[in-house]
């Protein structure tokens, strides 16, 4: 946990603010109206000067230091409060990061304002049925026609899309070029004519989190092209990088909480302090306890190195590969200890992150081994980019 002395006041101020501000019945408010509750929540954070945490003052953010941002994520994870920034996560990170790096002044003006005012939820429209791990083989077409592009195609696995107003879109603009060099990056209004968002029900039962998006002759004005035409792949890679950083910290903290709750169950099962350490359950707990604390060191170490050295260390590339299977192991441990009760349907909504439903936690952990480049793809990346192993000659 970030403990720099000058952060102590910031932390206690934020903690007090959370206690005063978050209503005790936030879970039922969230259930009854997901959208308006999320709008209220991110607006309250913004008005108090806490959000969007990593936005600079130039674009209307609070201009917090990296360590202050960390405090925000740590405290919102550990307090009894809703997931933050919830529905606005894609808008706050991917859209902001992409536009501030690659967007025009006009794009920044046009799009960051509505995000800041919590008027627009954004989603990502990248993956396709035939372009998952091999994202660069995507086939959705965008054809230039005067001062607009005409888009046709199908996107899938778009998180947040059932509630989204706009999306960041990758589409092919040059089918003749090598696959990485014929893709462009667009901003698309999902309320445009020809857009059809169809929610996908997930294995957890959640229906408001995930969708397919169909584009039929959808018009995108040229001013919504980000960067140069056919430069979308490079731009998308900077967006994907936004998925790491301080945002992984809440995941580690939640994992620590989940393990603590499993531990309580384990100690109930084996109360004898002489037997617990040598029992299979005690041994399994100790192993996971060590792993979860190592994960935390890995994340904070990456941040510390970033602050001190200005670049992430080699461990940053393994965060996902280490974190995701660990989530599966911790939730499997909780599930085993809970017995049949762990299979009772308690909650299935992702937004209701305080779920005590061990099976939902367990199933949800596969999000982490699949999304954002599956762990098989991560192994290729580590093998080739970190260890310098040669590429598969058949992979173009």
């Amino acid at each position, binding site marked *: 946990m970030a403990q720099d002395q000058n952060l102590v006041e910031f932390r206690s101020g934020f903690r007090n603010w959370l206690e005063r501000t978050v209503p005790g019945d936030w879970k039922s408010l969230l259930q009854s109206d997901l959208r308006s509750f999320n709008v209220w929540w991110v607006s309250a954070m913004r008005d108090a000067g806490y959000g969007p945490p990593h936005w600079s003052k130039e674009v209307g953010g609070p201009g917090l230091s990296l360590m202050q941002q960390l405090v925000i994520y740590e405290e919102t994870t550990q307090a009894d409060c809703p997931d933050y920034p919830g529905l606005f996560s894609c808008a706050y990170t991917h859209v902001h990061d992409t536009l501030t790096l690659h967007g025009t002044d006009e794009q920044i003006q046009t799009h960051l304002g509505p995000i800041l005012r919590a008027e627009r939820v954004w989603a990502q429209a990248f993956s396709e049925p035939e372009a998952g791990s091999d994202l660069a083989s995507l086939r959705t077409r965008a054809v230039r026609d005067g001062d607009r592009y005409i888009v046709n195609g199908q996107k899938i696995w778009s998180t947040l899309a059932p509630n989204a107003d706009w999306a960041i879109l990758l589409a092919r603009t040059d089918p003749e070029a090598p696959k990485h060099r014929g893709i462009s990056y667009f901003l698309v209004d999902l309320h445009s004519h020809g857009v059809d968002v169809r929610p996908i029900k997930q294995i957890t039962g959640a229906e408001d989190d995930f969708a397919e998006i169909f584009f039929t002759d959808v018009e995108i004005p040229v001013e919504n092209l980000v960067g140069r035409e056919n430069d979308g792949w490079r731009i998308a890679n900077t967006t994907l990088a936004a998925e790491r950083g301080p945002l992984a910290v809440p995941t580690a903290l939640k994992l620590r909480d989940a393990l603590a709750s499993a*531990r309580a169950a384990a100690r109930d099962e084996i109360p004898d*302090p*002489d037997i*617990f*350490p*040598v029992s299979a359950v*005690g*041994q399994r*707990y*100790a*192993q996971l*306890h*060590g*792993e979860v*604390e*190592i994960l935390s*060191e*890995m994340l*904070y*170490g990456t941040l*510390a*190195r970033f602050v*001190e*050295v200005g670049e992430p*260390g*080699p*461990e940053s590339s*393994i965060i996902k*590969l*280490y974190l995701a299977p660990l989530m599966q192991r911790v939730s499997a441990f909780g599930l085993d200890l809970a017995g049949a009760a762990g299979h009772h349907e308690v909650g299935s909504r992702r937004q209701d992150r305080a779920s005590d439903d061990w099976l939902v936690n367990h199933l949800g952990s596969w999000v982490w081994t699949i999304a954002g480049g599956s762990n*098989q793809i*991560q*192994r*290729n990346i*580590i*093998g*080739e980019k*970190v*260890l*310098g*192993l*040669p*590429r*598969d*000659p058949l992979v173009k």
Partner: protein
Amino acid sequence: MQITKLTPEQQALSEVTRDVLAKESSPSKVRDITESRSPFDRNLWKIAGDLGWHGIEVSAKLGGSAQSFIEASLVLRELGRTTTPGPYLSHQLALRALDSYPEHPAAATWMERLVSGEAVAAVALGVLDRRGVARPDFKADARGGGLVLNGIARDVPDVGHADLAVIAAMIDSDPVVLAADISTTPLNVTWQPTHDRTRSLFDVEASGVEINSAAVLARGRAAGALLEDLWRRAATGIALDAVGGAAKALEMTVAYTSQRVQYGRVIATFQAVKHTCADMFVESEVARIAADAATLEIAAGGQRRDFWSSVAKFRAADAYAQVAGDALQMHGGIGMTWEFDLHYWLKRAKLNQVLYGSSDAHRARVAAES
């Protein structure tokens, strides 16, 4: 915490150590020593003394350079990387015991020769049982002004090469730590040859051995605290050895699979091989992070030093065994030969898992404190 940035001095220490060991403890030198069943390279031991490795943490007035466990950790990592034979860790632990009692006569008698490397020291801490409880192997009984020592310690590293042994014993239910001059103490020391020839283990038997009271370094609570300190350092020392060894075993595997051709392709282009290498990298990094955390906690006297030293021990030692095992698998038949060097790493990795407490024993320690 992780060691995110070394000071220029630490960086230099790390680099010099690596350069010296690359030359003085190359695979062919390690092979020469182990094939001839020599315990270790006395010449390198002398160089280590000249370079100040032994006295790295020893206070300046006792002839050391008064650095921290962080500096010591850098050397231990490099020694693991080259599977260097020799009583380096044992010696450091014994020096730590003496340095904790700088006014004790044993410090004046031994320190200078231990820091220079002229004399060698080892420790007999006892065993860490399945419940994670540390138990000295010897019993001591008061007789006259001194003590009488009885008991058998199995598989104690390096004590057969030592001039001085730091020995843990129990007087009834109180621990005591002794600094015994091997030349004047009639212990029965028997070498137990191990498959890992880079380490030397000995059984030590004491049968009515009289110990002068001047050899008592600490008693009671002070002895208990000293032993806890030594256990943490021993566990972390093995973890650091594992970090260095795992990194090297991975490097060897990357090099080999990047040049070995089958089916007309370099085998590292196959995902079955590439993904194994990626997993080996994850294991190596996890080991490093755990060992770093333990090192920093020990150096700072932090509250989580018990936790981290045990986590580092089981996680890094297990990671090393996994990585070295995968390295053998990736090398195929050549890795099964005596002639090829890889078995040095695998054997040391497997022995590391059981030295100074098994992985299960260290997990039990973690489970017990939670």
